């Protein structure tokens, strides 16, 4: 279900009627629905009769919805957690990439002889051009043994040696001869018809893409892939119908993910099994790709990710590190570790594309939006993915919509998905424009949003914001402060979509010694899924989370979802609860005879097994387990479809920022953020809030500091470190207050959802932008808002021209 198809009407279609007709194997249940304290009601759902009993709301549960300590916290605070970067195997070699030194070239030759001679070097691998049956797009290009270099930093080869510094030295000894080609790293220049072409050759016109297989109507002209056009209704007419029209241009920069653990793997190629430790958001995706690439059965590829140092969307699939390390391991007969260095991490494994957006919105006097038109150009380097129409399409109700999204190729590393792809860019423009529109309509920002957003959860969130001290402290008159340091308050909304990955399964085992464990290949990228799975087991078996065992991050276990798009908790927890439920039933059946009762008479709570009828005195879970008639009972379950399929939920938040603008230095300080968010049933509120804090901080960092800088003359990134690539640190963090909405949607046995994308990362920029206007009376439409940008914005616009 793509967001492009989502209409506001669908979005607000909550509580759709359930077919009451009974179907074999199905039963009708009543589930909590809505927000406790606000809109809580009940909804009927028809669900498979194999499903566990409906979970009540959080306040009636013992472990779910509470915030026990992070399951692996001890390992993390004590340094015991083994990340991919920490894996050390006997005889392990350290590999290092050789990367392109120029942004666009044909490789003439690669001489590895000096590197091979260096003592300690055990293997060299060159990335070959696997033309196979393919025909080069541009026949005038000389066929080459090697792929074309399209960005500086593109991996070309790799060496493996006994120690890291030997590998580094060897990499420097590999001599690559380039036939340099004209390049372009500036998006504006890349759009010009005389620009060097990143992908030369005959352009694909819309029609020639025929034969199906994807979106029609996306042409290619020079370096531009696009526009991808999405039209609903006649926007031209929509603007004619409008009483007020606001139109502006917004610019956002390229951000890099900069996860603290770089991309990388340790690959151990054995004749019957390729074992790979990977810093990945998807053990499943790494396994699938390595198996497909090397033509191995999946059963002979094992991927392990027990601890993982952050991904933010960039770590899916095996990637070059995975393929090259595995190949080197095969070649050398030794395990090979290939972790990228920080420069490579910035250059070659992804980023958030830039955007240049022209956004036009028309509205009636009462706020009704008659038309939204967005034309965007963005660069995802030598890849695609710079679209940013998500917020314009999905945040508010509109009568007509016309979006055109264009990818502009430049000679820079390809983008990868980054936390709410396209949405921070889009929201920066949309949410400032909505504020501008509100001002023109003489409406309060919240009042207009109430008019154009009927989502009942957002409505509650706005109500909480309206009553908050921070929002009340906002002076509706912009630029009210007299001094050089001006205070401003502004808000922004965010939206994300409920997606489910059906590749979500788990096994739950109960042992005769009373230990309980859950196994799933899912990986914990820092969001805390280990803890949540423990909580689900605890709720079922009545034993505390620290007493249950969580074994994840290993493809030897049942398949787990890739962690991206806020899907993990929503996808996996129902499978785990189903497995836990089934295992508990088997467990009770196994012990009931010995306890002199029947399984349905037994209850598991507070670490005890007790009898409803009083046929037996409560005994400890451990003692009860000792009465099992086999050593182990277990159950495996996989995700079943959402209970109310075809219905589409969104999550989101309303975030208020208070900032101070020093109008003399151009420095912005974010003082406070008040954020109200929902994510379905919060499984572990503390972990959810931790993620929202983090999303907001990452959003602040993006808004004010981060910027991938490419030298225009040489096409090389100049700030490829964590010093000049500036990420918010401890002293940039404002006072944060997050209010979490508990919202029930009746969709699964846990009714859980996700928070990663909606967690403030997309709203921070717009909230700061709106606060900036409130502080200064000036719209800031360029990011990052450095002193240079701020002083220019303040100097160009008379400070008192724009009023409410």
């Amino acid at each position, binding site marked *: 279900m793509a967001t492009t198809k989502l209409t506001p009407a669908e979005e607000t279609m909550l509580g759709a009627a359930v077919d009451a007709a009974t179907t074999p194997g199905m039963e009708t249940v009543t589930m909590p629905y809505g927000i406790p304290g606000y809109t809580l009601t009940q909804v009927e759902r028809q669900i498979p009769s194999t499903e566990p009993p409906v979970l009540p709301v959080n306040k009636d549960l013992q472990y779910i919805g509470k915030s026990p300590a992070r399951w692996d916290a001890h390992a993390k605070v004590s340094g015991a957690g083994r990340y991919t970067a920490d894996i050390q195997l006997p005889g392990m070699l350290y590999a290092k990439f050789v990367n392109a*030194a120029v942004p666009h070239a044909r490789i003439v030759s690669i001489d590895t002889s000096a590197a091979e001679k260096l003592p300690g070097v055990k293997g060299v691998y060159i990335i070959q051009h696997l033309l196979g049956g393919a025909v080069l797009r541009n026949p005038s290009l000389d066929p080459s043994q090697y792929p074309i270099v399209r960005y*500086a930093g593109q991996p070309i080869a790799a060496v493996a040696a006994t120690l890291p*510094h030997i590998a*580094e*030295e060897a990499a*420097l000894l590999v001599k690559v001869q380039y036939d340099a080609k004209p390049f372009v790293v500036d998006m504006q220049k890349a759009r010009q018809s005389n620009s060097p072409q990143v992908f030369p050759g005959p352009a694909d016109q819309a029609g020639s893409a025929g034969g199906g297989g994807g979106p029609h109507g996306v042409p290619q002209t020079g370096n531009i892939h696009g526009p991808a056009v999405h039209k609903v209704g006649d926007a031209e007419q929509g603007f004619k119908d409008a009483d007020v029209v606001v139109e502006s241009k917004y610019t956002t920069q390229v951000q890099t993910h900069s996860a603290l653990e770089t991309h990388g793997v340790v690959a151990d190629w054995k004749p019957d099994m390729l074992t790979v430790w990977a810093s990945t958001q998807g053990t499943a995706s790494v396994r699938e790709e390595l198996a497909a690439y090397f033509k191995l059965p999946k059963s002979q590829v094992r991927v392990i990710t027990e601890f993982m140092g952050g991904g933010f969307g960039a770590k899916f699939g095996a990637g070059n590190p995975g393929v090259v390390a595995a190949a080197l391991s095969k070649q050398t007969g030794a395990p090979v570790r290939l972790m990228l260095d920080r420069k490579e991490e910035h250059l070659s494994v992804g980023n958030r594309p830039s955007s240049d957006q022209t956004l036009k919105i028309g509205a009636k006097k009462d706020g009704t939006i008659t038309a939204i038109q967005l034309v965007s150009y963005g660069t995802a380097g030598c890849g695609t993915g710079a679209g940013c129409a998500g917020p314009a399409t999905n945040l508010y109700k509109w009568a007509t919509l016309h979006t055109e999204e264009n990818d502009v190729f430049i000679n820079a590393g390809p983008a990868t998905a980054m936390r709410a792809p396209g949405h921070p860019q889009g929201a920066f423009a949309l949410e400032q424009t909505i504020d501008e529109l509100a001002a023109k309509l003489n409406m309060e920002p919240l009042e207009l949003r109430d008019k154009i957003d009927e989502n009942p959860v957002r409505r509650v969130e706005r109500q909480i914001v309206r009553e908050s001290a921070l929002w009340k402290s906002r002076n509706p008159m912009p630029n009210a402060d007299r001094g050089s*340091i001006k205070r401003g308050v502004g808000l922004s909304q965010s939206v994300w979509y409920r997606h489910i990955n059906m590749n979500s399964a788990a096994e739950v085992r109960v042992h005769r010694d009373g230990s309980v464990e859950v196994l799933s290949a899912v990986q914990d990228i820092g969001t805390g899924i280990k803890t949540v799975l423990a909580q689900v087991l605890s709720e079922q078996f009545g034993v505390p989370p620290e007493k249950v065992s969580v074994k994840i991050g290993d493809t030897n276990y049942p398949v787990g979802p890739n962690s991206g798009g806020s899907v993990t908790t929503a996808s996996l927890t129902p499978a785990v609860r189903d497995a836990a439920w089934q295992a508990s039933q088997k467990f009770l059946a196994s012990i009931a005879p010995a306890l002199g009762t029947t399984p349905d008479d037994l209850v598991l709570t507070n670490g005890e097994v007790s009898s409803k009828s009083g046929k037996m005195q409560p005994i400890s879970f451990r003692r009860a387990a000792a009465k099992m008639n086999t050593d182990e009972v277990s159950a495996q379950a996989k995700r079943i479809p959402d209970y109310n399929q075809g219905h589409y939920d969104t999550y989101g938040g309303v975030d208020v920022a208070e900032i*101070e603008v*020093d109008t*003399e*230095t*151009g*420095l912005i*300080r974010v003082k406070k953020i008040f954020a109200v968010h929902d994510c379905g049933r919060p499984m572990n509120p503390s972990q959810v809030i931790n993620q929202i804090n983090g999303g907001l901080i990452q959003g602040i960092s993006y808004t*004010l*500091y981060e910027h991938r*800088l490419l*030298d*225009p*003359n*040489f096409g*090389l990134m*100049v*700030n*490829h470190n964590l*010093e*000049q690539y*500036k990420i*918010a*640190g*401890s*002293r*940039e963090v404002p006072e944060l207050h997050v209010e979490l909405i508990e919202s029930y949607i009746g969709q699964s046995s846990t009714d859980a959802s996700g928070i990663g994308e909606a967690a403030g990362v997309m709203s921070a920029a717009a909230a700061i932008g709106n606060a900036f206007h409130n502080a200064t009376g000036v719209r800031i439409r360029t990011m990052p808002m*450095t*002193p*240079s940008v701020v*002083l*220019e914005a303040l100097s160009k616009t008379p400070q008192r021209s724009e009023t409410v």
Partner: protein
Amino acid sequence: MNQFVLADCTTESGALSQLGQNAGKGAVVKAGGVDLLDLMKNGVATPTRLVNIRNISGMRGIHETPQGLNIGALTTLTEISEHPAIRAHYTILSDACGSAATPHIRNVATVGGNLLQQNRCWYFRSDDFACLKKGKDVCFAFDGLNQYHAIFDNGTCPSVAPSSAAVALLGLNASVELTSAKKGKRVVAIKDFYVQPDVNPMMRTVIAPDELLTAVIVPKPAAGMRSAYQKYGEKRSYDWAIADAGVVLEMDGNICKRATIVMGAASPVVRSSPKAEALLTGKPITEETARAAGKAAMEGAQPLSMNGYKVQLFPVAIYRTVLLAAGQMDRDPSAVG
């Protein structure tokens, strides 16, 4: 990082003899090692021999003398910023040292190393670019990305002076003690210590290859001296200054008898502004005179394509730091300190 021989020295004389023997033969001095290891890891510095002076205990410590202060070159920035006498009488120095880099770097970075560290320029600090400072004949910053570069004296190499300690020490009219095995000790004022890039972009200071920076000598504060230092960065957590200002005032009541105004990240060599200083001399310190001084300090500024904002920023840094030094303003919440 390339391989090297580490000559680990436990005495000053040992280090000096090492330098004497190996001067010009690829030997470099390593103290805290923060900047050197950064350059080596980037492949920009490739010394074959490191003369390790980090563990020479005799070169470390803050000594109060009748003439002022004698600070061993290996004294760390943390030790200087936390020293009670320096905090009390040389505020500019404790603040400058205390706002440099990160707490962890300040724990090992020495004052000598801080004064001797290489200038800030991402072209220079990347092995992707062979520039003037590496003995080549081209500067990449002029037509490239120069938002953090110099606005003064930027005709040859617009990299910026990195040392916050130098801002303070120039303001305090301090000197460095340079020692060699052959020629013994000499004392060079900070104002004469640095070499403008148009003289020699690779040289940076007057220190000879066989010389060791052994101490920093700070004269006794004049009567009525008040001082302050403030650094402005895009971030308040670890970041380099986009503007920093050191101000030393000799006050007689509310009249400024003498002023020193120093800027760090404005030029390749730490720079004072006689024009700005003259505007304050003999006058009361007010917001008006302080702002006038800040404005005057920009005379002759020639911003590059992307750093024009610094011409707006420095006058603010200066006027606010003048007022802070004069006790007329609190520490600026926009500053890093």
